[in-house]
């Protein structure tokens, strides 16, 4: 498996001396959803801005498809075209009062001919399900709708890597599941590489194929969600928690002495695990 985007020994220090990234190395596999977990201030947003070329790392490299990104004007423009960021607050991203024009912005910046821009805008609106909102002013949209328009505004650039900063924050439960479905679709149908920062732990086992835990600007853990959840003490030390389901399995194991698999973190995994236990208990 080759990594679509890779950070190698990335360091970033803010002007005031705050070390935000401290030798971070991580990879996002092509066509997978990679979760970046971490408490507030763990360095997730800074990492993303480095991966997209808005910030320049103090040292270290960003590699796209195994090739290091050059830090000149052309290299940065290329990086921004291939790596798109959806910001946490859609009001930061939507600068136009017109939905269609806002979505077109990124594609126009790529210098594409008008027909191609229009085709991409239509396609992005269709993928994110915002076609019906094209005639509405931005300020009349709900938070969830703004979020979708913001995603469409990045998809229009047809990036290979899509980065989302806290995509589920502020959405209602329906909005969260719709969004996660959209991300899975992008992964499965377009083979898009997705990086998402979150501290919504219940979303992680459902949607992430791989995950990293960041803390104080360093990579503390990496592995499949199951592997991360088998070390709950590290998560807790970083102001995170287990998903509710995994927590239940942990309690059943530690307090009730059941032989549960603590890496089971989704409803279907826990269900399978409980049925297995019930069958074991059955004959006695």
């Amino acid at each position: 498996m080759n990594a679509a985007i890779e950070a190698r020994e990335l360091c970033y220090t803010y002007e005031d001396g705050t070390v935000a990234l401290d030798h971070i190395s991580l990879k996002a596999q092509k066509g997978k959803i990679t979760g970046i977990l971490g408490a507030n201030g763990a360095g997730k947003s800074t990492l993303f801005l480095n991966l997209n070329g808005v910030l320049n790392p103090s040292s270290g490299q960003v590699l796209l498809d195994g090739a290091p990104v050059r830090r000149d004007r052309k290299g940065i423009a290329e990086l921004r075209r291939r790596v798109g960021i959806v910001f946490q607050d859609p009001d930061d991203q939507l600068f136009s009062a017109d939905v269609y024009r806002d979505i077109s912005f990124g594609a126009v910046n790529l210098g594409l001919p008008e027909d191609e821009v229009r085709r991409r805008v239509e396609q992005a609106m269709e993928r994110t399900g915002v076609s019906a909102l094209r005639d509405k002013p931005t300020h009349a949209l709900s938070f969830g709708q703004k979020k979708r328009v913001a995603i469409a505004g990045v998809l229009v650039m047809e990036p290979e890597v899509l980065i989302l900063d806290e995509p589920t924050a502020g959405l209602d439960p329906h909005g969260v599941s719709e969004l996660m479905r959209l991300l899975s679709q992008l992964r499965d149908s377009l083979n898009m590489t997705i990086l998402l920062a979150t501290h919504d732990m219940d979303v992680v086992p459902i949607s992430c194929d791989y995950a990293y835990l960041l803390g104080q600007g360093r990579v503390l853990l990496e592995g499949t969600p199951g592997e991360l959840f088998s070390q709950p003490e590290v998560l807790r030390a970083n102001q995170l928690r287990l998903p509710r389901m995994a927590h239940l399995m942990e309690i059943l194991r530690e307090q009730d002495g059941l032989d549960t698999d603590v890496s089971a973190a989704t409803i279907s995994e826990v269900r399978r695990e409980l049925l297995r236990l019930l069958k074991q208990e059955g004959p006695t």
Partner: protein
Amino acid sequence: MGTDRYAYQSRLRRVSPMPKLLLTAVSLVLCLCCDSIAVGLATLAGMGALTWLLGGLSPRVYLRFLKIPLAFLLIGSITVLIHSYPAEAAVLAAVPVGGRLWGFDAAALRQASTLFCKAMGAVACMYFLTLNTPVIDVTMALEKLHVPRLLVELMELIYRFIFVLSETAANIRIAQESRLGYQGLGRSISSLGTLASMVFLRAWRKADRVYTALESRGYTNHLTTLSSGYRAGRWLYPATAGVALGQILVLYLERSVGG
């Protein structure tokens, strides 16, 4: 911002802003230049009818919008109307106050009603534009008319972030009120001051984040976007000529009847 909401619902919403701008400009200039009561009233009726018939705005809503400038115009016209005259002047209506007459004569009445009708006609012209064209389309048209790009981009950004900022301000205000921040004059003033400085600070920080987001989408000093397709609306050109012709005809009729 009330008008913008109706502009989005207008039947002319998808028509290119250029012919709408032209129709507004031509009728506005003619209405102001003719300097006549009849042309003012005719423009008011004509542009009102166009907003109703072409834009699909209900007359009730339109009349409600007309009421807003009406109050200003009435006060303005009254100050033009009322003069002070010597005791033996020929006036239409006046009240004697300390040896002089305060009221109006025929000329003043004529002047005030011309001003009033002209202004109402002009308002109707502007309403045709604002009730049928969202702000964002007007700025697009300005850009085509070679208004400096920086100015147009600023207008667009300001328009967008008015809503974001007013929402922020409203939220802060509610948060303050829910903690009794507006009880008594002293506290109200201090809370309002905090609100103003908070809104300013947040705007400052927001600007930073917006810039970052623009950069990540390939911003290169120009906010160039593509608007959703417009209908050409060429049929509005003959309509423009028709309105202009109507205005001139009314002026001619008034002059020939009056003269």
